[in-house]
């Protein structure tokens, strides 16, 4: 089971859970499983099953856009981090 780290901005969609373990061997599978377990979160990060462009997904410390996208392999002990763009500064 890979561990998905949920940023505080999205925790209201996961009943405040910060880490969620889901099964999957690719980044795409992990996110689909995550969306199935937490549909409200799924609506935020997926659009017709595709990862929304402004949501960055990292496996370990690598952005999947620079690996194999949704096909990027995920090992059982990997951490998958969702990093949404934030803009606050004031």
């Amino acid at each position, binding site marked *: 089971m890979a561990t998905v780290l949920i940023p505080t901005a999205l925790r209201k969609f996961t009943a405040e859970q910060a880490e969620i373990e889901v099964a999957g061997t690719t980044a795409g599978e992990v996110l689909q499983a995550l969306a199935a377990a937490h549909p409200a979160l799924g609506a935020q990060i997926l659009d017709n099953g595709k990862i929304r462009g*402004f949501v960055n997904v990292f496996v370990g410390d690598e952005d999947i856009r620079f690996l194999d996208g949704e096909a990027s392999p995920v090992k059982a002990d990997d951490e998958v981090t969702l990093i949404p763009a934030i803009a606050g*500064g*004031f």
Partner: protein
Amino acid sequence: MSAPLTASELRRYERHIILPELGREGQQKIKDGSVLIVGTGGLGSPLALYLAAAGVGRIGLVDFDIVDESNLQRQIIHFTSDVGTPKLESAKRKILEINPNAIVETHNVALKSDNALDILKNYDVIVDGTDNFPTRYLVADACTILNKPNVYGSIFRFEGQVTVFNYQDGPSYRCLYPEPPPPGLVPSCAEGGVLGVLPGVVGTLQATEVIKILTGIGTPLKGRLLLYNALDLTFKTVKVRRDPKWAVGTPHPTVTKLVDYEQFCGLKRGGEVSDEISVAELKEWRDQGRSFTLIDVREENEYEYANIGGKLIPLGEVVARQSEIPREGVVVLQCKVGGRSRQALEALKAQGYNNLLNLAGGIAAWSREIDPSVPRY
């Protein structure tokens, strides 16, 4: 090149100068340096104070806002006695009080596509302390076009992100975030609240990177994004890769001129007067018993503090929860002053809604004009 450090400056910066990594040479580089701080709010406050104290020779500030009481919880460059005065004036006074050697240049404008390049080009390092996506992309693109290092920090509730873009062949903002979130999907800025100390932590991290860039010491935070979580007390860094499509110095750059960033971020107002309703009209509708649905798009804590009987669906959830918003009949969208409800309206319009009205002035206007017993905040 500024004048050599004076005897008084050598005394003032003694604790810097005795650092072998910095020395007199490093302090001279700080003095020779110029930094533009975009926004003198939560991030801009500690940035301006520390960079002034450190001896940065020329500091530019961009802001057009007035100090408000609600700023004081985190914008530590502004004091209680400054409420009601322009932020630039307040910030400049504090900077010169800390360090009269500094040259402070104030730019009393909203940064836009037609003035950004002219303002940014006169500085060595740009620091982004703004609070919304259109300005973030504007600053980022302008830095890319001018090939200026962009010391980036952003905050949201309890989390911060820090990195350095466009530095020594490193990635640019768009390598990390090619496209902005559509309005209405992510709470964009002020509405989510922010822990007051958070911009202090993030802004001082940015200030540290500025000093490193000016002096050339250490390992700059380029190609790495630092994620700080105050609630869990974690620091994590992930890699930011250079994307040839977006980075500085690519043979066929994608970013060659500035665009309309309000439009780019999907925030352009419809401009039709007909999709607004005043609080007086809303009161009349209620008195007449007219049927309509009132949706309050603020956050739960704001709703608990004060509401006017709308159904709560925060801006960040309106698209995901659209099944709860009727497509028939009239739907009035309401927030604190009318900005977020406008974003919600545009986001829902994009989902095919055509029965929406924006409550002009929001709950603040309702409290002011209709029912003073509704608490203001």
